């Protein structure tokens, strides 16, 4: 049977013909397909790079995530060179590890700003729980491990340990509205000051300073009295205030005093700051150096014509100098560790300027409108990083490179497909 069918098929197949030029046509078409395949592969690879860059936490360079538990004292080691665009910003997780700064920014000029925690590699997390209603500012401990914030208008004040994930709630603390039922009312637009050992945080409340001990949960009110505005810490148990000098009237004072309260002995010492201190003090004006010896008074000229930074010896009150080359921009806190950085306006952008170099400490994407950057002192003292190859480049492509790359990959892919179709049509027509 099969022999017969074989013969029949063999006979039938004799009608087959081979088109002339078959080898050349097939080779050209095959080469075109191989080329298109390579192009597609390149496009897919580029798209893959784009997607990977999207998934990576930083500006596209593989920066390992900061481990959350490198020891009880692990703190932030540096600050970001750049705070780039993120397509998705996650809520702050329980244990993200220490962060370098808290950023207040809006997506458009004039829009309600949000607060973000910024890691040393520039990656941002959203701080969802901060009460925006009365312009409450969160606070960051010097080592970047703890974030403090008023959770709702009626409290509590929460201290979140970013390494262990532990949250300590202080009840009875609300915002500064008169209708607030909380026992203590935190001033709006006021900085909180962390003690050098990270054990206590001093809040500015109606009537004084509220000390929260995050290790014991104790709360203590230090009445303001003649002491003035809480300004910082000289040591673990020595709180510094700034207060208008003697003979003060409504907005007119003859000098400024720095008052130090010893929390152990309960003694108070004060010095008059010599020289041209501003006549009206802002709650953001004072910043104590990390060693507790010096004080800077930072003024943005809101209350009078005095702008710039004045430095004083905190022990003697003697003026150490004045710096006025930057346009200070408040409300926002300054930070003084190994170097002094102040909030300032550079061009049309608000940022933080290092008074040693007069350069911005970090570059922030133009797609955000930053209003305030609150830095962990250890982050400022540490090296800049996380920017990868881009560093602190502020060119437009440095902020949009991921989109440019993906767009180019898409154009390449579409182009390759069109070329492939055109060649196939040409070959088909030729055939």
């Amino acid at each position: 049977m099969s022999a017969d069918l074989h013969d029949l098929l063999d006979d039938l197949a004799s009608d087959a013909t081979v088109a002339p030029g078959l080898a050349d046509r097939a080779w050209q078409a095959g080469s075109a397909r191989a080329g298109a395949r390579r192009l597609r592969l390149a496009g897919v690879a580029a798209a893959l790079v784009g997607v990977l860059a999207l998934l990576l936490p930083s500006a596209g360079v593989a920066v390992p995530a900061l481990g959350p538990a490198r020891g009880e004292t692990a703190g932030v080691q540096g600050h970001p060179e750049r705070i780039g665009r993120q397509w998705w910003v996650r809520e702050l997780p329980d244990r993200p590890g220490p962060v370098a700064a808290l950023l207040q920014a809006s997506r458009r000029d004039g829009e309600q700003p949000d607060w973000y925690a910024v890691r040393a590699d520039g990656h941002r997390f959203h701080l969802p729980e901060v009460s925006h209603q009365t312009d409450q500012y969160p606070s960051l401990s010097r080592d970047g491990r703890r974030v403090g914030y008023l959770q709702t208008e009626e409290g509590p004040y929460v201290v979140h340990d970013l390494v262990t994930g532990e949250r300590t709630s202080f009840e009875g603390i609300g915002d500064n509205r008169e209708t607030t039922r909380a026992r203590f009312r935190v001033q709006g637009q006021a900085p909180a000051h962390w003690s050098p050992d990270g054990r206590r945080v001093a809040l500015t409340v109606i009537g004084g300073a509220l000390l929260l001990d995050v290790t014991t949960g104790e709360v203590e009110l230090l009445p303001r009295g003649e002491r003035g505005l809480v300004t910082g810490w000289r040591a673990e148990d020595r709180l510094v205030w700034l207060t208008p000098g003697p003979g003060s009237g409504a907005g007119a004072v003859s000098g400024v005093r720095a008052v130090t309260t010893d929390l152990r002995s309960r003694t108070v010492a004060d010095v008059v700051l010599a020289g041209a201190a501003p006549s009206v003090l802002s709650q953001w004006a004072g910043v104590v150096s990390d060693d507790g010896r010096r004080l800077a008074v930072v003024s943005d000229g809101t209350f009078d014509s005095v702008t710039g930074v004045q430095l004083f010896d905190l022990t003697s009150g003697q003026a150490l100098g004045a710096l006025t080359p930057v346009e200070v921009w408040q409300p926002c806190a300054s930070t003084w560790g190994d170097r002094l950085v102040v909030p300032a306006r550079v061009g049309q952008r608000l940022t933080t300027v290092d008074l040693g170099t007069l350069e911005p400490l970090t570059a922030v994407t133009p797609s955000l409108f930053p209003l305030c950057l609150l830095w962990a002192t250890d982050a400022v003292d540490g090296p800049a990083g996380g920017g990868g190859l881009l560093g602190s480049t502020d060119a437009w492509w440095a902020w949009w490179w991921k989109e440019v790359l993906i767009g180019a990959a898409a154009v390449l892919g579409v182009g390759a497909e069109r070329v492939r179709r055109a060649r196939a049509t040409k070959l088909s027509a030729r055939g």
Partner: protein
Amino acid sequence: MRGVDPGQEGFSAFVHARSAALARTAFLLTGDRHLAEDLLQEALTRVASRWGKVVAGGDPEPYVRRVLYTCAVDGWRRRRPREVLGATREVGGAAFSEASDRRLVLAAALARLTPRQRAVLVLRFYEDRTEVQAAAELGCSVSTVKSQTRVALARLRELAPELADAFGPVPLEVAP
């Protein structure tokens, strides 16, 4: 002046040497001269696009044939519609001898089979492959080859009873 790509040279030599045999298989798989040319060009184009790898694996013909069968059965779509000749194709204007009649009848019957049935018949009865080899070429199981062969032969017996002798005896029904 650009020299000839050694890959292209090897490919051309292969095509010149084997295109006639491949064209015959393609013709049996499609039942149409033009479709066969298109099918063969498509298969050779696919092979040419990765010629380096194909020749690195040894003799290219088995791979080319596998592509040919794959294209014929399920992977190949013509880009330009053409008239399917099948039973009405021309046979060169020759006088209709008995042999010509048999070819016409067979061609018409083959045209009514599915591509997979045709492929099975070509592999088993034209290329004389075993069931195992045919299954490997088509990427299916041996039992599929067996059943497709049985069905295809039965269908040919129905469509071309005058050629029944060539299709072998009707299998006997075995009583349970």
